[in-house]
């Protein structure tokens, strides 16, 4: 990954602080098109801050971010970027919206201000629901579904605008362990079959390393960045230095 040609995302020397202590220190990272990258790290390692910078939600203090070859400060083409948050945790399950309405809301930016969804847009919604195997649930209220099903709906909401890059923030929080594996398999399918570049921010190191293509370990600084096999070869001492305490990597072989 050192000599990436035309990376889809390029971070150059990013530093960020909320008060006086830096939460990100000189982070540089290049993510090639078609990668499935897991950004892992302990609590307070700056993962969420990095993600918010990548989504343009926080203003850059130091360094530079390029998305699709364009400086993030000038980047306007946000429909190319899908975002899936920790919905199962923060989601208001009493919200009276059907699965179809939720997925259609993913087209809001693409349809444009003062315009209405066309028949073609509605077909796109159905196609996105089909690709996450949730078409049968389109008329159900979102709150009636399980955590895993809800998260599939949120993936469909991102897919509907046909993004080239999808950013996922701890998407398996609140999803029961039985469905986590299926969820990652679905992400793998999106990456391999639809060619979507995925950036996954997660704690769930053991489960993801057999699914992702690349791993970046963040603990304020970028301690490791390479392909998943290299990460799996790291010994306990190297992992402990990243996490700041003893770590043993357990691979889930489902």
């Amino acid at each position: 990954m050192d000599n990436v040609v035309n990376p889809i995302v390029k971070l150059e020397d990013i530093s960020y602080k909320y008060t006086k202590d830096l939460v990100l220190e000189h982070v540089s990272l290049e993510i090639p098109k078609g990668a499935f990258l897991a950004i892992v790290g302990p609590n307070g390692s700056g993962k969420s801050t990095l993600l918010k910078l990548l989504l343009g939600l926080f203003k850059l203090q130091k360094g530079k971010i390029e998305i699709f070859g364009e400086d993030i400060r000038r980047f306007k083409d946000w429909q190319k970027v899908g975002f899936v948050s920790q919905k199962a945790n923060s989601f208001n399950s009493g919200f009276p919206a059907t699965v179809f309405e939720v997925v259609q809301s993913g087209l809001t930016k693409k349809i444009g201000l003062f315009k209405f969804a066309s028949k073609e847009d509605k077909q796109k919604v159905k196609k996105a629901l089909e690709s996450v195997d949730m078409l049968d649930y389109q008329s159900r209220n979102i709150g009636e579904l399980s955590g895993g099903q809800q998260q599939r709906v949120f993936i469909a909401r991102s897919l509907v605008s046909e993004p080239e890059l999808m950013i996922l923030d701890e998407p398996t929080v609140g999803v029961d362990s039985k469905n986590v594996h299926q969820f990652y398999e679905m992400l793998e399918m999106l990456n391999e079959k639809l060619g979507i570049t995925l950036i996954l921010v997660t704690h769930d190191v053991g489960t993801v390393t057999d699914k992702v293509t690349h791993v970046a370990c963040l603990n304020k600084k970028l301690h490791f960045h390479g392909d998943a096999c290299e990460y799996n070869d790291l010994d306990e001492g190297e992992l402990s230095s990243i996490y700041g305490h003893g770590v043993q990597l357990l691979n889930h072989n489902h």
Partner: protein
Amino acid sequence: MISGILQFEFLQNAFLTGIIIGALAPLVGVFVVVRRMSMISDALSHVALAGIAFSLLLQKSFLSLAGLNPLYIGMAFSVGGSLFIEKLRGVYKHYQELAIPIIMSGGMGLSVIFISIADGFNTDLYGYLFGSVSAVSRSDLYVILAVGIVVSLMLTLLYKELFLLSFDEEHAKASGIPYKAIHFIFIVMVALVIAASMKIIGILLVSSLMTLPVAASLRFAKGFKQMIVYSVLFGEISVVGGLFLSYNLNLAPGGTIVIIAVLILILSILFDKWKNR
């Protein structure tokens, strides 16, 4: 009563205005409720009261202003209050709900001062507090109709953006839509609807017409559009039924409208329980 509506202009005004706000208040209320901003309507109605009191004071103090329609000043205060709320939410980022009691007590404080300076008002103020069947003039009706057209047009055109902002604010921000401008337009729409509704339902009860029909439809609506339809339907039943009772029993319409809305809410809770037993 039907013959009364055909015969008397004030009844026509009251019923036509009632039909407009019966749809408009729940329509805006759907977004207010799902965004957990129900208290904002209470705060803005108290600011509108300050506007009304100020306008009545001006009328009393200056003969040349006797023709001034308090609806305009009430609207201006309500919209001004909405802008202050937004400003305060920005100042207290971690305690955004503080903006509501600040604006509410500020509005009430101003109202009390204006009423004291005027040494009390006549029945006009009573009408504004609890609603009145006879107080709606033809020019009020036209102003409220204009507000109705503007608000429904804006809500229709910005429906998908408002839905996204209500359902998932974080996603709305990340998607790149102009969420600040949309939120701002929405708050101004809420302020306008509150001011437009107060002649019929009264300042103290206006927030109930925004929340009760929505609370009732939340019990069983499938999807967001269905919730809008049920909310508007319940709003219309409450207003038309409330005005009918008000006229026949000589009661303030604010009370009768709210009581019908509460009855609909109780019935919808019972229906929901019965359905899910």
